[in-house]
């Protein structure tokens, strides 16, 4: 079959659909992931009113019914905890936390239960569940609907963390996440939902833990985190004019992290810039930088540079938010300074 262009939102929808078609055990939990619950008979027009606030799950209700596309109440601890139990009892729940910012309302279930139920009890069970959630700034959605918070998950042994930046990866990684025997946090960037790309029709898996080289180069390695891969690619494109050849890596998954791919690239380019729109402290950017400063130090010919958001909440005002998110020009400048010494 041929790949077609799909936007990321639709690629995710397709992955869910194909996973649900192939495996009865896959069910969805979330708030208004269909919409109009409880009115299907009385007022059928209400059914599937939303498909979640971004319409990502729209169209799954008519195919799979309320039995498998389950609108919950606003109780993340309730349905994330229930997903853990359901996963152990034989289902493959995919639960949606509407925005990554809301994770605080169910964090214990992930930190102490989903992540630890295998290890603590001696490896007798698995928790095959996926938590889909929505990250990122640039939507004018202010401090409580714009965070990324990747590191809150990547810090925790027992969780896997995926954050795709392209449509094909979104589909292929979500399919792998659903297949996976362990709890996977699958993070979708709201500003990438409408980005389109070639996506194979068939349910092609993309393995977790493998970075993707999105642009080959020789002078510097730029690692972009989720949406920042695109910023890195723009920067790389602009740097061509300055005679700088930048390699761009998309780790795609942050736990496990494909350290080999990053180290291998740095061994050739000798310079590393990490671009991440997250808070700068104890972040995936520091994680990658620290890893290379330990394991790739001998290859480095200059400091590792991190281009991140400042240590502030995400501001609302468009002028402030634009200044908040790492900008292409800054990446270009940082690379230029670095490579030109």
């Amino acid at each position, binding site marked *: 079959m041929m790949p077609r262009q799909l936007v990321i939102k639709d690629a995710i929808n397709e992955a869910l659909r194909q996973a649900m078609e192939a495996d009865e055990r896959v069910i969805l939990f979330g708030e208004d992931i269909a919409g109009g619950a409880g009115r299907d008979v009385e007022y059928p027009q209400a059914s599937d009113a939303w498909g979640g606030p971004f319409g990502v799950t729209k169209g799954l209700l008519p195919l799979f019914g309320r039995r498998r596309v389950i609108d919950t109440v606003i109780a993340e601890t309730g349905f994330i905890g229930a997903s853990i139990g359901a996963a152990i009892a034989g289902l493959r729940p995919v639960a949606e936390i509407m925005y990554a910012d809301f994770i605080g309302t169910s964090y214990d279930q992930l930190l102490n239960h989903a992540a630890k139920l295998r290890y603590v009890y001696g490896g007798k069970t698995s928790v095959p569940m996926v938590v889909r959630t929505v990250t990122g700034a640039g939507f*004018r*959605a202010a401090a409580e*609907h714009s965070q990324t918070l990747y590191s809150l998950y990547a810090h925790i042994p027992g969780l896997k963390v995926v954050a795709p930046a392209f449509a094909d990866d979104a589909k292929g990684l979500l399919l792998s996440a659903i297949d996976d025997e362990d709890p996977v946090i699958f993070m979708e960037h709201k500003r990438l939902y409408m980005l389109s790309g070639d996506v194979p029709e068939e349910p092609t898996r993309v393995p977790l833990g493998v970075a993707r080289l999105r642009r080959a180069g020789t002078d510097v390695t730029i690692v972009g985190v989720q949406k920042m891969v695109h910023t890195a690619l723009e920067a790389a494109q602009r740097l061509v004019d300055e005679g700088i050849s930048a390699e761009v890596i998309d780790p795609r998954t942050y736990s496990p992290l494909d350290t080999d791919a990053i180290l291998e690239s740095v061994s050739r380019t000798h310079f590393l810039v990490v671009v991440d729109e997250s808070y700068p402290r104890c972040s995936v950017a520091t994680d990658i930088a620290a890893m290379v400063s330990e394991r790739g130090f001998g290859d480095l010919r200059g400091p590792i540079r991190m281009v991140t958001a400042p240590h502030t909440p995400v*501001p*609302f*005002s468009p002028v402030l938010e634009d200044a908040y998110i790492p900008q292409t020009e800054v990446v270009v400048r940082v690379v230029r300074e670095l490579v030109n010494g």
Partner: protein
Amino acid sequence: MTRPNVEVLTDLWTRMVRIRQFETRVTALSAANEIPGYAHTYAGEEAVACGVIPLLTSSDWITSTYRNHGHSIARGVSLASIASEIYGRADGVCRGKGGSMHAVDQSLRMIGGMGIVAGGLPIAAGAAFASAMQGRPDVAVAFFGDGAVHQGAWHEALDFAGMFKAPVIFVCENNLYAETTSVDYHLRTSSVAEMAVPYGIASATVDGMDVLAVRAVAAEAIDRARAGAGPFLLEAMTYRYGGQYEGDTQTYKPPAEVAYWRERDPIAAFREKLLAESIVDRSRLDLIDAQVQIEVDEAFEHAIAAAWPDPSELLTDVYTTYGVSGVA
């Protein structure tokens, strides 16, 4: 409670109209794609904010939600500073850092417009607790929606308040929906008010389309709380005219239901009452309408002309005091 006098009644009317017209403008501007980000409007629910907030003293505390314009307007925040906030301007009520979802004024003791469902409830309980402990008469009011009762934070906040008899009034704006999900589906009880029982908290359900009905029960709840009798859960039955947020096409609402509630419009009903009982005459109400129209026009004219925040604002006010070396 004795019947409010003409000035009070006219003031309540004015605030309700101010909210309605402001929100109507927000809806229009959103539809025209002029407003950045999310806007959750309060049209239809005016009688709740206006039934409760004008009863508060300036030192009482409020927690609001993302659906806060009505609370802020009822509290007396200037329309211009809310409009500026919605546009992200420097003179917005939050200096442009919060936007529509957080457009409340902390200097009026509105602690926050919490974007997290039920997030404000324990905070309001704590503010109330602190007031009582310090021997002050201040109460706290926490606004939230019907959907919020499912959150752990709701449970823990009511539990805390019940335990310590904190003078907090939990005001549930039961607008029949949490996003697309109707209360028939999401509640297991026939009212939110009943859910107060396990916490030892008094409660009542009131017609949230009738500002005086809300006011009567709220006054009692506030008086009780000030007198040390503890928290109260006030459930106001209301309806949101707009979508969950602007842009929501609301295909989940049956037209008959919409018509039923529109029929019971809180502003129209109150207007009729004021006229029928010859409390205020038509021309006075029309004048208020027209004046508010001008206020709203001016507020948004102001907002779109207002300056953007200086980029340096990005880094300010993360902390009150910064590290010794100036590093956060």
